[in-house]
């Protein structure tokens, strides 16, 4: 145990900021800015501190806080940090303040927005750090509330409907999670991820769930799967995603795609992988097919979009699907393929991190274009931005090429690792994935060409300012990180290697 509850601080400092804003209804705009950025930025500072004290050679949880909470239900307040959590806390720490700046810049009533945003940030951090289903599920579900209002109140004209669809579809998934964990609790008396993982490793969990008989254990697995699949999203559970990303205000979309979509991916690794490796293996074929479908269809759908925001939304589906492709392929590994499991899993996590950076940067760029164009964000509304706004073009170009997977930029690292694993694990999937990569390149290059090249036309024909100081403050750090992590990928892979080795070793091989 440690004297200072560091992880609780990580989770609750943003909430404390929200509380302060709530108690200060007359806060002037400047104070809202300072206060919310300070509390939002606390995640990065504490994350960096954790990074410096973190022992990357261990696969277990560090900075663990565990206190009994609800005795009659066997629930603990249990937080812990491993390489994966640390990675995602850092990602939140980077994306959240930038997304907050992007949000605050364009709106009236900044106080409510900042308040909800900090609430959302705390929820995401709680999901990444909680190790007992009860607190985890509180954060998981509560995150819908600020997200709902952020989308609805500050979003575009169709935001009300989009927010409603988003929340209802997510709730459907959550109902699956709730039912599944009720069954697990009934069988084992605990809902603690760590304890359950231990029970699973001892073979006890499978035995106890099997006592329900019949197809119930499979139903339980499907319940958990549904909850996570909706959030990630796994094709075909993505229906909520394009309208939500398109209608949400820019800064919120940055957070949704940069951080919240990672909550689903995180859940796959934290819950499904250790608790249901057998079921994952048994269903890895169809699941891989779905994930691959998401990658390919996401790319093809992106190719057909003329709304830049929708194009990026499908691009997110495409990129996040690669994480799941790697996960499912690894889950289905047979003896002899074990060497390929580690790169695949590491690739999935690295891809999740990198997608968070590049997708939020790209959504921000579209937000900038949209602001210049008075709301226009069609693929054909712009032209020759390269001439009009060279800095924007440079930074957006880096983000585009990072997203496309150009070697030397961060996006390449994740995709390389994923495909390195995939070729050994499932050659057909690797071939299909390569086609998807081509489609990805195609739509990203279309974006690049139509908007940035050619002569100044459409919106760009008139006065078109380059990035102002605030916009630079958001975009430059993201782009610098893309380059840095492309050149020195060891900065993140070093954090997760022991973890990935541990995961690979626990794989039930047939």
């Amino acid at each position, binding site marked *: 145990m440690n004297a200072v509850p560091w992880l609780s601080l990580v989770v609750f400092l943003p909430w404390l900021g929200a509380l302060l804003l709530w108690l200060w209804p007359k806060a002037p705009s400047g104070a809202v800015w300072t206060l919310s950025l300070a509390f939002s930025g606390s995640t990065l500072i504490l994350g960096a501190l954790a990074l410096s004290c973190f022992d990357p050679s261990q696969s277990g949880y560090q900075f663990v806080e565990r206190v009994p909470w*609800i*005795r*009659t*239900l066997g629930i603990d307040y249990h937080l812990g940090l491993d390489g994966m959590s640390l990675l995602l806390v850092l990602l939140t720490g980077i994306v959240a303040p930038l997304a907050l700046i992007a949000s605050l810049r364009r709106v*009236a*009533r900044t106080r409510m927005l900042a308040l909800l945003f900090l609430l959302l940030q705390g929820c995401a951090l709680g999901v990444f750090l909680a190790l007992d289903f*009860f607190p985890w*599920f*509180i954060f998981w*579900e*509560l995150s819908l*509330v600020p997200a*709902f*209002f952020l989308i*609805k*109140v*500050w*979003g575009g004209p169709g*935001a*009300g409907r989009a927010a*409603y669809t988003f*929340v*209802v579809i997510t*709730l*459907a998934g959550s*109902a*699956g999670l*709730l*039912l599944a*964990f*009720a*069954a697990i*609790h*009934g*069988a*084992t008396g605990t809902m603690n991820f760590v304890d359950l993982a231990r029970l699973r490793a001892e073979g006890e969990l499978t035995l*106890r*769930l099997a*006592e*329900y008989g*019949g197809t*119930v254990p499979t*139903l339980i697995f499907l*319940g958990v799967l549904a909850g996570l699949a909706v959030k990630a999203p796994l094709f075909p559970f993505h229906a909520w995603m394009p309208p939500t990303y398109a209608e949400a205000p820019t800064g919120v979309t940055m957070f949704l795609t940069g951080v919240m979509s990672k909550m689903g991916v995180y859940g796959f690794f934290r819950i499904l992988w250790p608790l249901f490796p057998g079921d994952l293996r048994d269903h890895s074929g169809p699941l891989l097919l779905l994930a691959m479908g998401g990658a390919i269809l996401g790319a093809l759908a992106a190719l057909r979009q003329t709304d830049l925001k929708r194009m990026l939304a499908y691009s997110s589906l495409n990129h996040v699907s690669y994480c799941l492709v790697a996960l499912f392929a690894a889950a289905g590994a047979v003896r002899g393929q074990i060497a390929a499991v580690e790169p695949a899993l590491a690739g999935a996590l690295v891809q999740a991190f990198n997608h968070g950076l590049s997708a939020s940067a790209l959504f921000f760029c579209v937000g900038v274009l949209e602001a210049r164009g008075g709301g226009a964000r069609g693929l054909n509304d712009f032209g020759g931005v390269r001439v009009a706004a060279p800095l924007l073009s440079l930074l957006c170009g880096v983000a585009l090429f990072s997203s496309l997977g150009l070697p030397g930029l961060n996006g390449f690292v994740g995709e390389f690792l994923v495909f390195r694993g995939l070729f050994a694990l499932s050659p057909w999937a690797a071939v299909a994935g390569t086609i998807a990569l081509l489609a990805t390149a195609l739509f990203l290059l279309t974006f690049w060409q139509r908007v940035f090249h050619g002569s100044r036309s459409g919106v760009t024909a008139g006065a078109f300012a380059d990035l102002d100081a605030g916009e630079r403050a958001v975009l430059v750090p993201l782009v610098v990180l893309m380059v840095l992590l492309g050149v020195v990928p060891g900065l993140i892979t070093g954090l997760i290697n022991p973890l990935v080795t541990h995961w690979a070793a626990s794989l039930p091989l047939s």
Partner: protein
Amino acid sequence: MSLLPWIPHLTFAGALLSLAAGTRSATAARVTALGTALVGMVLVAIGAVNFAPTSGLQTLVDVPWIQEMGIRYHLAVDGISLTLVVLTSLAAVAGILFSWTVEERVGEFFALYLLLIGGVYGVFLSADVFLLFVFYEIAIVPKYFLIAGWGSTRREYGAMKLVLYSFAGSSLVLAGVLWTYGAGGADGFSLSALAEAATRLSHIETVVVFGLVFFGFATLAGLFPLHTWAPTGHVAAPTGASMLLAGVVMKLGAYGCLRVALPLFPDGFTAWQPVLGWLAVAGIVYAGLIALVQNDFKFVIGYSSVSHMGFVMLGLATGERAAVGGAVLQMFSHGVIAGLLFAVVGRMVYERTHTRDLTELQALPLHRLIPGAAGVFVIAGLASMGLPGFSGFPAELKILVGVWRVNVWWTVWAGLGVLVAGAFTLRVMQRAFFGQAGTDAAPVAESSSLAPLSLPEKTGAALLLGSTILIGLKPDLLLDWIMPALQSPAFHFAATKGGP
């Protein structure tokens, strides 16, 4: 010894005092009523602090009453009844706070109100079935007058329907109890005497009598398809009375099922169990879907109550200890949350806007006109959706744990019910409060005169919200009372069933 047995009588005395005070001034009647409810709450709190959870009822008073028939004035408490007594005390205080603006015949209103509360306290504390029945009837009669006298939409119809259903239900109960008393040759009406007599009934008789008693009580609990009195009654009732109806009166029915029907006739229960489970899940889903298409704000909440009570009945229908415990917790949780939702609709919104039509409300930027009400409704709505962190979550979790062990398909339908609850709550929240959100330019001036939340409203909302969050974060407070009580031999039917 405990002061708990005095609470019903104290409340009845308060009813008389309010009536008397009402002849002087409205304020005096209000203050008297609030004072009575607060004293009741303090006595409950003292009783709760001194309560040591055991299995089985702890007798508070036991004296002969009608000796020829072996009827005794027997009050007793266990963890289950104490939970519901606590709920009643909360609902009583909150209901009075939200009835502060009643202006007509104030003394009479609060007298009837307290009479109802006293009856409810009595039911929860009775260990003699005859006595329980007397208190039960005392609680039913004032409802009619409250709705018919102070209600709104089709109040005579709503009041009449509610009371006819209640009386029909209670006559079934009475028939069943008297049958057991006569045919089984009981020497009294105490729970233990009747239980013993019930063992002397033939199997067929047990099945029939269980049906009479269970469905009699279940009518008041709003079990599908006997629920139809509930939405109309809730809508017709004045705010304070809807809060009590949904908050505690529906619990009387569920409590009767749990305290009388299930322990006395376990064999009858086994025979009926599949029917009960399916009716419960049908109610959860059906009422939820109806709530999804209502255009009257209050009807949405009325049907949502039926849907949530379906979870209570489902928990009871499993006959499984975890789930029965969850059902009791759900009674508490729903009592608090439904009370709050009715308060928002009836008091906070309707009394300010004079409409409950969702299409009309949608045209108003209510989230800016009465932000307090919007905030309360959002939090209460989240609690009602069963989000973790609120009292509904541990309750539903425990119920689902038990349902998995008994019937997988019930679980699946209940899961669908959870989703539907989310959908209708979100829909009504969006349409009632945030219809104009996002359109910042909308003119607010014409109706910006809506008053902000008054002190009684704030206090009442804080009391109920605080309770649901406290129990949501620390359900042990109640489960430590409830679960030991279910270990009692009387709840033998609720042994941990099969499965893991």
